[in-house]
């Protein structure tokens, strides 16, 4: 049986030194932002903020300088990330590109693609969306069937992507299409592309979430032409690239800090001298939080050391999303206050926002069930 390892380690001094600088920046930029705004966490989209992050050198931190990066360590990046998330900074205009699309291009993109996109991402000027899911391909991602057929100079695309977060705001989308169809080998024949959402033949319509907000989109491709030079990686290499990309988004601090704003409001609410029940509730949540931070940090240290802690990353995401999902329930049980939309106290608004957001925590980036399947494979069960 393969087991997991969570070795503890220390952040290097240069990473810790960055922390104070980031906090000062956030204090200035976010000022007295309302708790419910901070509760949006990495859902907040603010191009101005992203450009400032780019100017500070806090996007593309680990990339080579020749592509606009800063050649800093993954641990320095980790400190910036966790500070952003703990403060509830609106990072979503650069987040996806920094975390997934940029690293994907660095690894599999052509030199021309890297030159064209990476420096702009690093400046915080290019927002990306990810086009993976389809109406009949969710957890079973390999069943996707949006077709990209070879035509002169590129590909003709037909099909539908759904749940495409921020596609309506993004400058580009990294989409995975089927370039070859063999029902017996559905993991083969997938290919990734850089898609300009403004192309002819692409129609976008909002999918409104249960709280009435517009993050998701349905993106329909009808004979949309994608030029050859926008293909990312080899034809048919899409599955390998997608799974690599998903591993980038598994163990980061975004997998346990989504409800951090509510924990803070809870602590404010119970006051300096809480009763036993309130203190016990806070203590239990803080014990989970402190442990998750060490687990997440441990994975970051392994990644920095060049290891591939895929099982550990899946464990962090499963435990982390369970924790962040539980917080609204725990607060409800303890306080019983009504969750609200834009009336009532800060606590009520943050509770209302996160209660409605929480179901997505264990869906996005691979459902809880899929993750637990990955963990079970690591345990030798499949």
């Amino acid at each position, binding site marked *: *049986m393969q*087991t*997991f390892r*969570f*070795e*503890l380690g220390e952040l290097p001094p240069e990473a810790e030194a960055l*922390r104070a600088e980031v906090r000062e920046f956030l204090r200035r930029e976010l000022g007295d932002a309302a708790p419910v705004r901070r509760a949006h966490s990495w859902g907040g989209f603010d191009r101005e903020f992203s450009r400032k992050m780019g100017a500070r050198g806090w996007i593309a931190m680990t990339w080579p300088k020749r592509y606009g990066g800063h050649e800093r360590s993954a641990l320095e990046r980790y400190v910036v990330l*966790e500070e952003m998330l*703990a403060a509830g900074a609106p990072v979503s205009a650069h987040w996806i590109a920094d975390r997934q699309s940029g690293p994907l291009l660095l690894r599999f993109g052509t030199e021309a693609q890297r030159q064209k996109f990476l420096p702009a991402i690093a400046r915080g000027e290019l927002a990306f969306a990810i086009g993976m899911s389809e109406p009949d391909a969710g957890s079973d991602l390999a069943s996707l069937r949006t077709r990209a057929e070879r035509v002169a100079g590129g590909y003709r695309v037909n099909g539908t992507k759904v749940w495409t977060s921020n596609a309506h705001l993004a400058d580009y989308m990294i989409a995975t299409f089927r370039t070859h169809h063999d029902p017996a080998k559905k993991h083969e024949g997938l290919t990734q592309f850089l898609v300009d959402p403004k192309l002819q033949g692409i129609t976008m319509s909002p999918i409104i979430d249960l709280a009435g907000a517009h993050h998701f989109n349905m993106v329909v491709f009808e004979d949309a032409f994608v030029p050859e030079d926008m293909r990312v990686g080899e034809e048919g290499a899409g599955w390998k690239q997608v799974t690599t990309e998903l591993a980038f988004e598994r163990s980061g601090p975004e997998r346990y800090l989504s409800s*951090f704003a509510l*924990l*803070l*409001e809870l*602590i*404010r609410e*119970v*006051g*300096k*001298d*809480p009763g*036993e029940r*309130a*203190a*016990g*509730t*806070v*203590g*239990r949540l*803080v*014990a*989970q*939080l*402190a*442990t*998750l*931070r*060490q*687990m997440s940090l*441990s994975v970051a240290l392994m990644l920095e050391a060049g290891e591939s802690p895929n099982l*550990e990353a899946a*464990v962090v995401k*499963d*435990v982390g999303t*369970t924790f962040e999902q539980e917080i609204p329930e725990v607060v409800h049980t303890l306080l019983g206050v009504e969750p609200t939309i834009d009336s009532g106290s800060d606590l009520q608004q943050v509770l209302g926002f996160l209660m409605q957001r929480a179901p997505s925590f264990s869906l996005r980036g691979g459902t809880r*069930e899929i*993750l*637990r*399947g990955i*963990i*079970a494979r*690591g*345990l*030798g*069960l*499949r």
Partner: protein
Amino acid sequence: MNELRTILSDVVTRLFTDRVTKELLEAAETGEWPDGLWQAVEENGLTLPLVSEAKGGAGGTWGDAFVVTRAAGRHAVPAPLAETIVASWLLSESGLDVPSGPLTVAPVHREDTLRLARAGGGWRLSGTATRVPWGAAAGHVVVVTEAEGRTMVALAARGAGEITPDQNLAREPRDTLAFDAAPIVAAAPAGPRVPANAVWLYGALARSAQMAGGLDYLLRQASQYATERRQFGKPIGSFQVIQQNLAVLAGHTAAAGTAAANAFRAADRGDAAFEIAVAKVRVGEAAGIGASIAHQTHGAIGFTYEHALQFVTRRLWSWRAEFGGEGEWAVELGRSVAERGADALWPHLTAR
């Protein structure tokens, strides 16, 4: 893990694998002292990781103690190894000599108080300490108490007090020691790193590591069983519902190991009260859930005395309540967080 710790881990694992057999565990439950095991543990220098080499110890760290204590939990070692590690640290931190043989600590209950009073040139010990681990089997008990307005560490030999035997769910001895102006071997003001609640605090630390080790065992054992046991024509581990349960157990096991390791690391740095509270709460929660999943996976066979699973699950059910249950520690932790205030939480977490 550094190289020395890897060697240490190999040594303890080999020793416990060879020595802590089902027969030994069953004999220990009838009250038999595992003399051969204890001698082997002492000969390998595992009982005094935190005592300086000059005083006969290993001159190591809490990080080393974690390796030993976690392994002791993984193998359900039926002897006061964790207690001896803590007790010997209390003594050496306070400048007292460490006697050979098994040690224990008292009082382990917050409502129990032991009193030291001067008598001639020395001290006498009075009061009752309940549920002292291996109170009868240990050669000496190390007591932390207040006397004359300061925290004192005292060493009493077996026989100094009246013993009433009892046990925990795993039939590990949990004895009541009643002292009535009993003579003691030695006493000294507590060292600077020994707070008044040191027995409670470091007892909780030790139990966290033992429970983390117990969970390691449950995960390994349950995963293995799920690949061997066949129903409906295939291993039960091929059913998604079993896979999902074991993945949950894996998450709790990983969290428990991390929380406990982090508390031991903090102990090496100095003030570990925050991390110990975090560990006792997080590991205690994992222990209950983990025992439940491991039993569910094993079905009826795991519910028998014949199967070794119960040696660990019964310990987990007792250990999580010893030196403060997770509810009590959560209240303490929550109060400290509330007192610092919401805005101090993140800076506090990242500074530790």
